[in-house]
């Protein structure tokens, strides 16, 4: 699928149309780097220093006292979540991660996405309890302090709302940025106790093949989860990126159900009940069901399927001039590791393989990168991911053949379809402006 050809006169090898450069130029291999440097790509970067450099004021004074808890630089105050319900009115709040302003794969705790029915509860950890009961041999109740003494594991996993990327199901491309379209997705290092460790102590009645997990928040949000999954890799997370789980992400503990839709990762977890069949909670019979083509809606659709999108460039990140840019983005799958990401700059006609930042972890965000020389002409950027289970990210037409095509346009805060993992296209015009586009 990829086109590989040599450029003229020492220019970097182009692997696909419109300036996509071989990913190995990132790896510091002499010949390829020398080739890249030999072009006009870096001209504008080397032509800046025309007068003597001043000594800046911060180099001539003492700094600010180090605070007990650090905050981002004051110049980065625009790197925040977008919050749909800042006054906490009687409706769900969506807080979205600004992926276009971040890089790497780990989401800072204050920027982790949130979907919450009634804000976040003020839970006293000294009074919080976790109960495991139902079809178990010995129901048990745990304090936070007791759980913190159990053997723990640390795992890096993404959490993604089942309805993330729903704006891609609009009839026309929503003019929105990557935060609005893909911001209900985050990735953290979670540390906690494996649920199987606790179920070893309660024992399991053979009739118990599902469990319900319930939060201690006002609405007692609950979901049913198959026991098979619970025994595989589910954990009760106490820590998020090294510190206790953030209040809006479930303090003092949340369920982590790697790869499954975010709503199942119950926040403020206080009860697990083993049951024979799904409880038919509102969040699995009304929300988180998917009306597709055909007479029956889908439910119990759990894994977030393989997806990728480009974060840089993306809408709002205008290219100021032709020249070298790194195309960067995120890829992930609820079914395992990312195996491959291809990038196109001509709307999917030709593709080059992106470099994947190591380590590539199962059910975690993977950062992909692709060197690119933009010649100033209009282009359409796309990325397409494959996972180790053999799944690939569908085109819009491939998905709509199964689910039916969108007929209307709704606001980006509405959720016309879930589990939307189709390819995202960014169109860049000759002024460098980036817009969401359907290729």
């Amino acid at each position, binding site marked *: 699928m990829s086109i590989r050809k040599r450029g003229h006169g020492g220019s970097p090898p182009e692997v696909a149309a419109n300036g996509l450069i071989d990913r190995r130029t990132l790896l510091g291999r002499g010949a390829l780097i020398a080739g890249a440097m030999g072009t006009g790509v870096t001209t504008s970067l080397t032509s800046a220093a025309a007068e003597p450099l001043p000594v800046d004021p911060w180099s001539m004074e003492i700094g600010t006292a180090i605070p007990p808890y650090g905050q981002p630089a004051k110049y980065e105050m625009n790197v925040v979540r977008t919050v749909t319900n800042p006054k906490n009115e*009687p409706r769900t709040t969506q807080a979205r991660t600004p992926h276009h302003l971040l890089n790497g794969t780990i989401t800072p705790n204050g920027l982790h996405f949130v979907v919450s029915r009634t804000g976040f509860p003020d839970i006293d950890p000294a009074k919080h309890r976790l109960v495991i009961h139902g079809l178990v041999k010995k129901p*048990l*109740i745990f304090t936070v302090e007791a759980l913190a003494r159990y053997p723990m594991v640390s795992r890096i996993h993404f959490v993604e709302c089942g309805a993330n990327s729903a704006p891609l199901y609009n009839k026309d491309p929503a003019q929105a940025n990557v935060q609005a379209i893909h911001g209900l997705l985050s990735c953290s290092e979670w540390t906690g106790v494996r649920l199987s460790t606790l179920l070893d102590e309660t024992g399991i009645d053979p009739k118990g093949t599902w469990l*319900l997990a319930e939060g201690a928040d006002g609405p007692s949000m609950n979901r049913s989860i198959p026991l098979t999954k619970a025994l595989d890799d589910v954990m009760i997370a106490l820590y998020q990126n090294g510190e206790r789980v953030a209040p809006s992400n479930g303090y003092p503990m949340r369920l982590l159900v790697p790869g499954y839709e975010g709503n199942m990762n119950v926040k403020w977890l206080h009860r697990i009940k083993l049951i024979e069949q799904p409880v*038919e*909670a509102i969040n699995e*019979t009304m929300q988180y069901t998917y009306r597709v083509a055909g007479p029956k809606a889908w439910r119990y659709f759990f894994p977030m399927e393989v997806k990728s999108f480009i974060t840089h460039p993306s809408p709002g990140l205008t290219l100021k001039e032709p020249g070298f840019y790194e195309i960067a983005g995120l890829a992930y799958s609820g079914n395992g590791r990312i195996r491959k990401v291809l990038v196109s700059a001509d709307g999917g006609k030709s593709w080059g393989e992106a470099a994947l930042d190591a380590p590539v972890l199962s059910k975690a965000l993977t950062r992909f990168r692709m060197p690119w020389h933009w010649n100033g002409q209009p282009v359409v950027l796309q990325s397409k991911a494959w996972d180790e289970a053999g799944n690939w990210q569908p085109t819009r037409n491939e998905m709509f053949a199964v689910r039916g095509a969108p007929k209307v346009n709704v606001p980006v805060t509405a959720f016309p379809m879930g589990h939307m993992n189709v390819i995202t296209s960014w169109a860049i015009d000759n002024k460098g402006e980036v817009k969401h586009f359907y290729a």
Partner: protein
Amino acid sequence: MRNCLPVVGAFAIAFGSAMAVAGDGPGLGKSVTGADLALWDISIGPDGVGLPPGSGTPAQGAVVFAQKCEACHGKEGKGGISAALAGAKRNVGNYVPHATTIFDFTRRAMPWQQPKSLTNDEVYAVTAYILALNKIIGENDVMNAETLPKVHMPNRDGFVSRYPEKH
């Protein structure tokens, strides 16, 4: 050392599961009984197991609804700042497959400002009112632990499960 192994094994068997628990993990959970969990164990399955005593009619529910639900859900549940409960193309009455879900969610999560403040009679009554607004039950039907699970919801067979998933 080898000679000790059979002795350890016999010890664990003789003292049963308590020793097995102590040997397998930290054992820091405390035993809890069903009575301890009476206020916590609020989930109700589609078979109705867990439904509490009490009852309510649509007429009784209309009174509660006007006081505690209408401000958000609109007159006769037609919708407002919060979702429509009747009269919409897709609402809880014409979409969820079992009526128990309406009782369960209302009891655990509503009213929005004061979840879990309704009595069981009030929850039965509001559930009956919502079902009557959707013309699923009659104006005089009484909802209780026996009748509610038997309500046939119009979208009862409207779903297909994607689990277990195929890779």
